[in-house]
């Protein structure tokens, strides 16, 4: 039988770095072949320890993680990977968060709550079916694209730094800062619009004061573009040409809308 005609493989490989962590050689080979069929090249690890080591060596985009493996289980391996990501967050060595898809057998010892608690992002049933695998990968890539979009609006290093301020037993400072920012920023934008529209002797100081305050709070939360726009508004106001500020305030409102969406996602976890 001709294997090339009844088993066509994609001619190009998609630029996604995938690791398959699976102890059963049969399941591992089938998963690698399925990935190849879908156009992905992948590396393989035979247990949890190897998966943790492989992740330290190479910045994988996605890990397909078997939950129960000899030695370090998939749960423990995920926990170690997430810990390392957390430790490196905010440093020059920080990489992007790897998306971990649990390969579960749906038994008592292999449940989804446990996967989520360990830090896994998606699930797929074993034995893995091609269509289910493709759907899980597309979902992972869409999630990562959304995260990338979010990173363009909010600096992830700043958020990671704020997360590190968390004290056990106390409310999350990131959530508190986000709530405060989302309450105050619309009022500051309104103050600027109102001040410029009135164009009286208080307009300049009110615009300056609101722009400075918003620049500071946006910067504290890593909303770089919004902070830069407020800086422009500040500079323009300082030149006494308030008529140039409305388009900038409009852009700041549009950016704030993106910032709000991003912060709500961050807060929602």
């Amino acid at each position, binding site marked *: 039988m001709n294997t090339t005609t009844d*088993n066509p493989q994609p001619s190009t490989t998609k630029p996604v770095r995938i690791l398959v962590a699976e102890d059963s050689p*049969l399941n591992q080979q*089938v998963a690698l*072949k399925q990935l190849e069929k879908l156009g992905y090249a992948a590396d393989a690890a035979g247990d949890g320890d190897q998966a943790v080591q492989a992740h330290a060596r190479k910045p994988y985009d996605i890990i397909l993680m078997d939950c129960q493996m000899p030695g370090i289980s998939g749960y423990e391996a995920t926990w170690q990977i997430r810990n390392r990501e957390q430790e490196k967050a905010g440093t020059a060595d920080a990489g992007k968060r790897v998306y971990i898809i649990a390969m579960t057998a749906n038994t008592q010892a292999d449940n989804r709550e446990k996967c989520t608690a360990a830090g896994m992002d998606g699930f797929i049933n*074993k*034995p893995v079916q091609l269509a289910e695998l493709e759907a899980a990968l597309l979902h992972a890539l869409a999630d990562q694209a959304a995260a990338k979009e979010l990173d363009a609006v909010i600096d992830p290093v700043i958020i990671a730094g704020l997360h590190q301020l968390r004290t056990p037993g106390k409310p999350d400072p990131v959530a508190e800062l986000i709530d405060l920012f989302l309450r105050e920023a619309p009022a500051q934008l309104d103050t600027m619009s109102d001040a410029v529209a009135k164009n009286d002797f208080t307009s300049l100081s009110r615009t300056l004061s609101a722009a400075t305050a918003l620049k500071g709070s946006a910067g504290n939360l890593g909303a770089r573009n919004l902070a830069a726009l407020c800086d422009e508004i500040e500079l323009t106001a300082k030149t006494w040409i308030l008529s140039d500020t409305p388009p900038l305030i409009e852009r700041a409102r549009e950016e704030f809308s993106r910032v709000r969406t991003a912060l709500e996602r961050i807060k929602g976890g």
Partner: protein
Amino acid sequence: MNEPKPFDPGAIERLLKLGGPKFTLEMMDLFGSYGGKKITEARSAQQAGQLPALAEAAHPLKSSAGNVGAVRVQELAAQVELFAREQKAEMAGARLNELESAFAEAKLFLEAERTRLAPPPA
């Protein structure tokens, strides 16, 4: 009530579609060697009264068996694992006996499939 079929011929077709005959034969061989190793480990663990080790040996057999369509092996491996985890040694042992027979049967089934896929030279 109808007994579930011991084999799912669709699994072999899926493997063929995925990787062609050479790959399918390799997976069938791998099931024979890896599955045999796990059955041996399971029996040793059961004889030593090591129920966690018995569960660990039975666990990977489930999905490996599923990949080659050995449905009965898959079901029995799941039961051995479950009983072992629940510390029901007698039930786990009884299912392990059945699992050994089902595995031997699965190997015969796969041997027949092997002949179909790669007929011996005349």
